[in-house]
């Protein structure tokens, strides 16, 4: 099997509440012969707050990591959608020479190369190397609603990820492991994001709509690529059900966990037991474990 290495920026949530995303990502990549090399001494990307407080700071923080990643010949891989968005925004802003000089002055180290393709999301990494995904167990019968969230696709001129309304890249991966993907209109609608801390009423409403619509579309579970989406849809699901007196019961997977299952990694390895909505009954029912 070929071996390749990519610089990897896990971000803060993947070290804590979304640990299962980090672990499953590394396992899946290892199976594909891809080594994710975590950046040395990485700092916060500034997501959720820096860009609302100080524009320069919000560019300088990711720019510092972009400089660190430059020594690799491969693009920087991020798994969290918020980190991805911040890195893409920084790369977009750094196309401007005056901004490059200013940021270089702020971070005070290294030359900043002008390369807006220097950052990719984990989905893109898997998609680019999909021939290396060795499927050992097909996930037949599982009906998955792929939920991309807002930050991967928007704004298109910055992230250049996929269609803003009807993205397909995650659907293609899930279809590759022979699970079924449902056609639904809420792939990129807002889950409420970090407003869970300040306006939980809004987040509960928006997340309920997503879960309800996924269920209406006939999904048994959701696949996500963002730790904040996962938090709102999974750990809040009980609260949402109570609030709307609605029985939803949809497990929420990271897409890496589903790909990992198809690689015959065990649920324990993939930390499926970390989810609030227990996915095991569904997987047992479908005969997948």
């Amino acid at each position, binding site marked *: 099997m070929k071996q390749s290495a990519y610089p990897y920026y896990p971000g803060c949530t993947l070290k804590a509440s979304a640990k299962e995303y980090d672990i499953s990502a590394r396992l899946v990549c290892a199976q594909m012969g891809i080594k994710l090399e975590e950046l040395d001494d990485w700092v916060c990307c500034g997501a959720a707050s820096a860009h609302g407080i100080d524009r320069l700071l919000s560019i300088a923080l990711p720019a510092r990591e972009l400089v660190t990643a430059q020594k690799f010949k491969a693009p920087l891989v991020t798994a969290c959608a918020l980190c991805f968005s911040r890195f893409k925004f920084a790369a977009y802003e750094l196309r401007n020479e005056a901004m490059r000089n200013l940021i270089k002055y702020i971070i005070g180290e290294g030359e900043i190369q002008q390369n807006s393709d220097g950052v990719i999301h984990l989905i893109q990494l898997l998609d680019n190397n999909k021939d290396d995904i060795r499927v050992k167990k097909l996930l037949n019968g599982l009906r998955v609603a792929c939920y991309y969230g807002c930050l991967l696709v928007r704004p298109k001129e910055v992230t250049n990820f996929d*269609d*803003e*309304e*009807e993205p397909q890249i995650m659907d293609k991966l899930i279809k590759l492991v022979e699970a079924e993907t449902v056609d639904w*209109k*809420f792939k990129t*609608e807002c889950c409420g994001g970090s407003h869970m801390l300040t306006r939980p009423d809004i987040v509960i409403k928006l997340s309920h709509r997503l879960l309800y*619509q996924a269920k*209406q579309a006939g999904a048994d579970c959701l696949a996500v690529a963002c730790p904040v989406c996962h938090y709102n849809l999974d750990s809040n699901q009980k609260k949402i059900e109570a609030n709307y007196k609605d029985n939803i019961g949809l497990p929420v997977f990271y897409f890496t966990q589903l790909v990992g299952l198809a690689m015959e990694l065990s649920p324990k390895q993939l930390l499926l037991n970390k989810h609030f909505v227990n996915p095991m009954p569904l997987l047992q029912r479908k005969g997948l474990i």
Partner: protein
Amino acid sequence: MARVGVFVCHCGTNIAGVVNIPEVLEAAEKMPMVVSATDNKYSCSEPGQASIREAIIENNLNRVIVAACSPRMHEITFRRALASAGLNPYLLEMANIREQCSWVHSDNKEIATNKAIEIIKMAVAKVIRHEPLYPRQVGITKRALVIGGGITGIQTALDIANAGYGVVLVEREPSIGGRMAQLDKTFPTLDCSACILTPKMVDLSQHPKIKLMTYAEVKKVTGFIGNFEVEILHKAKKVDHLKCIGCGICWQKCPEKVPSEFDLGLGKRTAIYIPFAQAVPPKPVIDLSHCRYTKYLTWVATGQEGKKPPECRICEKLCPTAAIAWDQEEQLFTEKFGTIVVATGYQTYDYSHYKEYGSRDFADVITGLQLERLMSASGPTGGEVTRLSDGSHPKTVAFVCCVGSRDQQRGRPYCSKVCCMYTAKQAIMLKEHDPEVQCYIFYIDVRAGGKDFEEFYLRAIDEAGVIYIKGRPSKIYQDGKKLIVLGEDTLMGRPVEIPVDLVVLATGMEPSAGADELARNLNISYDTYNFMVEAHPKLRPVETHTDGIFVAGACVGPRDIPECVAQGSAAAAKVAALFSQDTLTTEPLIAVVNQARCIGCLLCVTICPFKAVDYQTTQDGRLIAATNESLCKGCGLCIAACRPKAIDLRGFTNQQILDEVAGLWL
């Protein structure tokens, strides 16, 4: 021997306030061949012109220089002055010492005076080589071609014909009528659209001066103003319209039902069809892509593979006048015209790019034009507005303005102008159809500029109780039987979520398909959206940069019906004015080819933006370029491109330009 007169104009203080006139006169008198140099306070005034006339006669002048303003300003004025003194008007040269001298050097009088002298020096060197030129007269074919049979084309054709000139109207659909025929009512008067349109359609079909060619397309255009040759393709109707009496038995009995284009897929038509009941001509064509007999013939011709289709031919068996003509093929005819009016109109924006609005996935999301068909008494539902999903009557309706308009992300930044008013009209009409209906209109701005438009908009709010919400919806989705419209009320600053039974997208206007190809054929300009470009948006709204070709109506930009009618009449007035002359005078300042020098590279043919350079073979068999005097605008591009310097522009010959430069050093 040239006898040059120089007339220096003060232009009040415009020139005299900066340029030292006596010094200029003194210098001018000493220039070669100059017989007299005089000044005038205002040369263009009647006394000023009279003094030029007198000087010409008194000094026996045969070349004149007026040192004054730009030739764009008064060249024609002074040419007339020369003509009235018995001199060929093209023996004039303007020396521009105002725009190019006094106005731009007002801070330095000395430099300005020297420059004025040098400009006059150059003019003297050039004017000496002026030759008398004579305009040419060309005949006119007094027959107009109107392309497009919507309300604009109909109005244009009727007005030209009523002025007494022949008209051919070409329409690519089987019937004239265009978009207006599809509308139910018109704003702001709520006139029945068909009731005011169909009499005009009938007038047109019965007018002795108008020849109607439906199911036909313009393929190729050559020639020039007064003398166009146009190739018109007559598509195969497969019905002999001379024999057909329009009884209707064929389209009633034809067994093949297909979605009707006229009803925008909401209703059905047959394979042999007229698009709508009041169609003109009221005679059918056979749609070969759906006709069963045609499918049978294809099956026979391709080796009889697969299941044998029915032979059908029911229309042929039932036709009382034996008008079905299977042997009729498409035909190309060439006709001559003096002018061409383009009135190809618009189509509505295809909203499938709007994925957030469902991209046509929801049966109960329709377009404004589809709602017109549903509201029309002659429409597919007989005027009942029902949902396509379950046939129920909608009680709540949301309208979304600016779909495919004012949206830079979709490449449609322009306003389509009519949507604000037609959504208000449709909301009012829905309330009249059913008083229980509640309408919501999502808008960006309500643009009600027009006679009685604002009052009409207020009527929608006051009488029909329409709720206007300022903001473009972010998403439309299906929830059970309802459609949920998500958006923001930007005035209240809060999100809105409205469940409705029906959503109407006010899709914007774009030029009809193929407008760009037609414009290229006609050699007229079109913009990035394929709208035709007028010669001047304010002062020459129906003319184009190609003489003899006019544009009118929604093919130029979004327009409502009154504007289209006004433009149609305006284009007709231009045509009639042209046809009131027996010959056309053409400008003699054009490019001429020196046959002996031309090497036949024909670079000029490809470079000419007016298609005015063609080629011909000389008696000794050489290929050479030849300019068309009627098409040439004298732009000079071919002259710059000509390698052996075989082309010269009359009045601006290569020699004259060199002399001008040399004249500076005299």
